[in-house]
């Protein structure tokens, strides 16, 4: 599948998701307008309502524009092809691995361990997984980085760390 076509399919998916988000925003804004019991033009729901309407409009234009360019019959079958090629791409796998590591660091390690320990575990493991350099160098770089950050922020600038 050509790159331009890939982007068109991705735009269709994005347009559908954005339309759903905008419908939620509009619905919630209407509820806020009703609940706040003030005039519409002073209501806290006014701006979100306007934004929701414009977002819906833009999403529908985006959807219409991209569906027009593609042959309707082939859209569904090509989605399957796009998804398969996306999953098999090595860069995609690396990106997903990276995101998982970053998520583990932010949501699991930092809240539950001391910052220096969480960062050390994170740096050593992520550099090892991606084979950045030899294990000894990874450990040295990680220890030096964590020590430098601690000294710079906590000792020199008295900035509390997570």
């Amino acid at each position, binding site marked *: 599948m050509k790159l331009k076509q890939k*982007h068109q399919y*991705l*735009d269709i998916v*994005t347009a559908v998701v*954005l339309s759903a988000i905008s419908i939620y*925003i509009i619905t*919630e804004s209407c509820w*806020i307008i009703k609940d*706040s019991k003030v*005039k*519409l*033009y*002073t*209501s*806290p*729901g*006014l*701006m*979100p309502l306007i*934004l*929701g309407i*414009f*977002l819906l409009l*833009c999403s529908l*234009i*985006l959807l219409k*524009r991209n569906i027009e360019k593609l042959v309707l019959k082939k859209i569904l079958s090509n989605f399957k092809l796009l998804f398969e090629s996306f999953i098999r791409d*090595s*860069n995609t796998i*690396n*990106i997903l*691995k*990276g*995101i998982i590591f*970053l*998520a583990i*660091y*932010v*949501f699991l390690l*930092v*809240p539950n361990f001391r910052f220096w320990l969480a*960062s050390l575990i*994170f*740096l050593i493991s*992520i*550099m090892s997984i*991606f084979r*950045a*350099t030899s294990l000894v160098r*990874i450990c040295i*770089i990680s220890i030096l*980085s964590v020590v430098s*950050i601690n000294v*710079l*922020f906590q000792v020199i*600038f008295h*900035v*509390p*760390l*997570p």
Partner: protein
Amino acid sequence: MISQYIIDALQQLLIPINFITLLISVFFGLLVGMLPGLTATMAIALLTGLTYRIAPDTAILSLVGVYVGSISGGCQSAILLNIPGTPASAATATDGFKIAKRGEGGLGIFLATTSSFLGTVISIFCIILLTPLLTKFALKFGSYEFFLLALFGVVICGNLTSGDDSLKGWISGILGLFIAQIGLDGLNSYPRFSFNNIELMGGITLIPVMIGLFGFPEVINAFMKEEKQILNITKFKMTEGFKIIKKNIVTVIRSGLIGVMVGIIPGVGEDIGGWLSYWAAKTNSKAKETFGQGNYEGVIAAEAGNNACVGGAIIPILSLAVPGSAPAAVLLAAFWLHGLRPGPLMMKETPYFLYQLCIFLTAGAFMMWILSQIISKFTVRVLQINKQILMPVIFVLCTVGAFVINNRIFDVYLMFIFGIVGLFLAKLNYPAAPFLLGVILGPMADTNLRRALVLSKGSLKPFFTRPISIFFIVLIMVLILSQLNFVKGLKKELVKGAK
């Protein structure tokens, strides 16, 4: 009075701790600018947290130093690697790399950094001349005008940063405006979209959003394979460099003025300033065909233009409290954190700040030029650092940067979430700048719209009868209608000509 303000600012500069801070921050900025994947916005956002607890003058000096250094630093990797260190140096790579390939890398970097210095100086003159004028104009703004200004900022940013597809820029801007609505609203303190979460009721903090949007995608990109060939810096004679600059002085001045004008436009960044200046130089050149083949004028125009945007982007901050670019947006957030209130009343409340900032910028530009000449042979080794080592360390710094503003882990979570948003925006070709501008201008748009409607008792008539409002409405309509197909052809010609 003005001379007193300037003397005070110079005295501030000569305090040893401030001088050393300037030196370190410009050096840090040059390094950040040089490394592909690290941006000026990220550097300023990280440093904002680091400098939160130090004296405001020292903090502002360090941020200005990083800003100037990082915008200029990108030229080194653009010239030696053909990969711009920051988006601002994208136009520099077009001719810069070809100059380096024929063995004149040192001369190329000298021309780039000298043009950057001159571009910044031109923009400083414009700050002094234009800021008081724009401030006087801004004092005539009411709620109606401020609402339309916010809308104008998002629309024009969406137009200019999204290439061929302004619709994506506007969607990005609308999403940013929506994010700013989360939390207690400014007029009634009603909790919006907070899901009964106390942290969300406080609203979305700006710095974690910025770090996430601009830093996270680059950290993730480090996990993708890349190959690079780095050329060497060669010796050259400075007198030869100065002769070339003198020969192209008209280009420097023109590019500087273009950069300032581009910088003034809300949300439009240094990269557009660089490209427009390059395009103007090429269009006015008698040797158009040599552009893209290693023409010195191409490098000079691009670098003078992108650095002039630094000063240009600061003009609307000081006069309207509206940032002219993404790094300027972080600078604005930093000003707020340190208790400064740039905007229409700045010239009345804190008039010294304008001159202090100009002195700091001048010193930063001069320091950048000196450091670039002295250390470029050493700093080029930084380009050889493996990204898979550097980026995880950068992410740890991003985590710290997100945490230190409010000392809450929730901001770190926000940084991650907006990082994912930034990644999707990047992969789906949605520009991040309108999103960021929307987050910054969202509160201004919301409170001013409702305040305006309260004043007019729900009537929209003042929007169409006040002269400045009419001006903004016409401008916004032109910007939207200009995206119709027949006008888009004109834009394509501009971009084609520049490349």
